[in-house]
């Protein structure tokens, strides 16, 4: 489903080149849950940004269902991101002036779905993530865990095939973090969505099928869950 092929990313801090990624390759199958771990500065978030088409690699390629992101125009990448990829961030990144329902409806409306239909779909997803009774609440009226669930619901709005989560539990208490991870696990197992999770959380990788460990911009090891344990 997802192929990451020899990704290299070099950027400049002033005049000094920084090699964030130095040839990272791995694959993610349909319905597979892969966690990416590694120390700070190992290139975890950079990989996720490149997979999501938020950034362009220096060399290498990312293919989603055999479509190379590199060959897509900016608009096509935006469309791909909207229709096939869902993002979940550490700080939720909900729009503070919008209710949970409006936050989830937004990507659908931006994609041209009628407002009524978008809201119906958003209600459905919010109910699915257990927030059916909180749809009218604004982010500042929700707990951290609830906000992250709204963010997951927004990521699911277009029924994407790939979920990219960047430290989704980093800003949550243990209980809420566990709920979020279980939810992502469920998406992979029950709905056959591929999940890529970047995390520092020592317990988070246990929810994945495989773990990719990055060190200094390179793949240090790829372990199956059983092996990791």
């Amino acid at each position, binding site marked *: 489903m997802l192929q990451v092929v020899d990704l290299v990313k070099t950027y400049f801090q002033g005049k000094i080149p920084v090699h964030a990624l130095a040839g990272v390759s791995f694959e993610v199958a349909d319905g597979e849950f892969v966690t990416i771990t590694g120390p700070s500065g190992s290139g975890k978030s950079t990989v996720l*940004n490149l997979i*999501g088409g*938020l*950034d362009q690699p220096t060399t290498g390629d990312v293919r989603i269902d055999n479509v190379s992101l590199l060959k897509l125009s*900016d*608009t096509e990448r*935006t*469309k791909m*991101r*909207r*229709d096939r990829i869902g*993002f979940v*961030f550490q*700080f939720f*990144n909900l*729009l*503070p*002036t*919008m209710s949970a329902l*409006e936050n989830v*409806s*937004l*990507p659908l*409306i*931006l*994609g*041209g779905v*009628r*407002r009524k239909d978008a809201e119906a779909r958003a209600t459905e997803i919010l109910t699915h993530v257990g927030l059916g009774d909180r749809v009218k609440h604004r982010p500042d009226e929700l707990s951290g865990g609830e906000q992250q669930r709204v963010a997951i619901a*927004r*990521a699911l*709005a*277009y029924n994407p095939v790939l979920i990219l989560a960047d430290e989704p539990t980093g800003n949550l208490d243990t209980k809420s973090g566990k709920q979020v991870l279980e939810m992502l696990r469920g998406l992979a197992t029950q709905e056959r969505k591929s999940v890529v999770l970047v995390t520092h959380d020592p317990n988070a990788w246990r929810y994945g099928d495989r773990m990719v460990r990055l060190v200094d911009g390179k793949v240090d090891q790829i372990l199956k869950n059983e092996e990791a344990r």
Partner: protein
Amino acid sequence: MRYMLRTISLRRMWEHKLRTFLTIVGIALGVAGFIAVEMITDTLKDSFARMIDQVAGRVQLQVTGGDSGVDEALLKRLTGNPDLAAALPVIQVMTKLTTADHKADRISLLLVAVDTLNDRAARDYKMKDAHGVEISDPLLFLNARNAILLAREFAEKYKIKIDQSIELQTSQGKKTFVVRGLLEPEGPATAFGGNFALMDVYAAQLLFGRDGKFDTIDLMLKPGKQVPQVEADLSKLLGGKYDVVRPSQRTQGVDNMMETFDLGLSVQAMVVLAMGIFIIINTVTTSVLQRRREIGIQRMVGVTRWTIWGQFALEGMLFGIAGAAVGTGAGYFMGHWAVLNFAGKISSMFVLVDLSKVSFKWTMAAKGMSLGVGISLIASIWPAWQATRITPLDVVRLGPSLTKGKGIALRRWLYGLVPSAAVTIYLIFAKAGFDLELSRIARLLARPYSLWFRKWGFELDPSLINRVLDLLPKTHYTLLAKGGFGLDGVRVMMITLLVAAITCTPLVMLALLALVRALARGQSSALLRLSADNIVRDLGRAAMTVAAFMVGLAVMLLIYLFVTSTKHEIQSWIEEALTADLIITNSSQIALREAIPVTDALGDELAKVPGVKSIAAVRLLMTDFNNTRIAVLALDLKHHLNKARFRFVKGDKEAGLKLVAAGEAVFLTQNLALRQHMQDAKTITVNTPTGKHVFPVAGIIMDYTSEQGAVVMDRTLYVDVFHDHLADTFHVYLQPGATHEQVEQVRAAIQQNPYMKESFNLFVLTNREFKGTVMQAIDQLFALAYSLEFLAMVIAFIGIVNNLMATVVDRTREIGVIRSIGATRGQVARIFLSQAALLAISGAVISLGCGFAMAAVQLTRIYEIYTGYALPLYYEWWKIGLTMLAAVFVGVIAGVMPARAAARLTLHEALKYE
């Protein structure tokens, strides 16, 4: 503090280059506009004063009778006066010069005519012969009636040689003169930029229609005589028939005449300058909010609140200093440009002067600089104060930095409404006749505000408050005048209106945004919603931008309504009053200052043209009256009573017309009556060549001939009293029902008549053309106001760009999120373009209310107080609609750069942005 300035403030200003640049430009434009206006008005006044001074030479006193002149018999009486060493007759006219080869054609020239035998007592003339030897008495060369001396530089410029013949426009038509010598550039020969000619006063009397009159009699005192004493003695001796003044005092009339024009421009320039306040507040507030964490860190490491305050106040001042410095330089060039483009037209309306020397004084630069820096400091006080409220705890807080909450923003803005409401109530009570004490009201107001200050930890000293409030007037006498609000009252009313409109800005914006959100449908609703949210979350700052935009638009609307109402009223008045088929003037399209009046004998010639039924000569003479210059309008009512169309304001129309046509009384124009408080006057005393003359008043009429007011009389009476046979225009009447072709035939006949063609330089205009020319002249008078308005709109434009760029920076992460969930770059751009449009629409909506209200006050009260006219409000909705649409379009254009910046944000960078 200097360390903080260098290590933090300057670096931050450099970091946000665009914001710094736009803020400095905003202030610079205001300062430049202010200096340019000062330069243009000063140039006009200084040029006139210089001309008076250069022509006056060593003259200590002058006997004047306004433009009507003084009787020549007076010269004999003064010549024998024991206090006087010399009494010198002078005639001074503006004329046009043409050389035989037409190398110089219709060049404006100041012609001064003096007594060739005695004038050197007062003025120095220097002339050299062909060998460069100085001639002891150049005036002796003016021994023939057609002899003339020209300033050397002028003659050389137009290649005029000694003994060459030139043509001058005189009241008798074109006349040939012989250049007998060239004056060196000294003394009077430098007047009017050196476009100067000198001739014999007695020859000028005949040629320029001053039969038995001089323009002034200049006086030299005997040694040891004191000017004030002689001035008083002579005034007594002349029995008030003429004015005895020092030459410098003669500028007063022009200063007064230009007062309304000067005031209008100055107020407008101040408004443009004040718009910079909004930009500074916006910039410093944005800076404070974006650097909240940095301020928290400073506070954590021990920086005091006052140092924080000083840091931001200083930043505001730095913008002011840089803006004022740039603005002063720009103003210098803008002033030169303005003088070059506008001063000529303004000068032709008020007084013809040489505009080659543009006035620029360091005091203007100092005033502009201090105003620019001053308003910047004032504008940064509040945001700097906000910075002091940030605590070290803010270091650990996350979340959108600029979110202040609409409630707080609304409340703070509405605090400003309290004084406006109080002033309104005060004015209502004052109008109703209650004797309210300003200081008592201010004390009442001071109480809640001092509590408010206490809330923030500041204790205001009550004795200090009392001392400040004691400075206010004890009663409302300055605000009220007999019969309604005086000038101070209406000024307060205008400011109140503007402050009320500004403080209501966030409220109106919220209502408008709610409406937009309710009406928006489909995909655009989501984008509009995001745009509206962006505004609501920064309501305070957004309101600041809208307020600046609104002020600019309101003033623009005010000017539009003022000009349109003026034009409409004058047009309908001319339609009514001007019934002639053709209007003829000499040397200028309309009777401006540059027109040379001609002998009324020309009227007899015109009457002979086939197709002409009758001719009416019109004379418009400016004369000094109560320290200003009013017009004396002489009309041929005796022969054209049936053609007279007056709008009567007071008096019996039938009886009044009969009296005036018979030369037994005069009419006063309404503005003269109001300005000079002569609504109930039975007589009016006017300067004439035979001294002050008392005329009975037969009524008050509406007339727009002179902004300062006019006395309207029959021509026969005028000729009798003023000994003046000249005419400024001739009204030509054809047979009733004459067709357009017939009018054109008569026009062609006049233009081709050999006598008129050879001798005069006539402009023959049809009724419609003349009206068009008058309308054009009004537009030209307001051209400078429109230019200033353009500056205001540029500043408003900068305000929107500044605000939106700050929003882009502040919403960077959100933009990243929106993009990451599928918004295209185009959609992000549309969010910011819509935001710009919403800001502009809000400004336009508020400016409509504010502009109309201010125009109503301006037209009905301020204009009436200054000119005596109360103009009815006139406008065309479609034009206003179009202007507002254009303003919104300008707002959207202002959004283009921020929208592009937002759309071009790199996604992963945007998401990392804190």
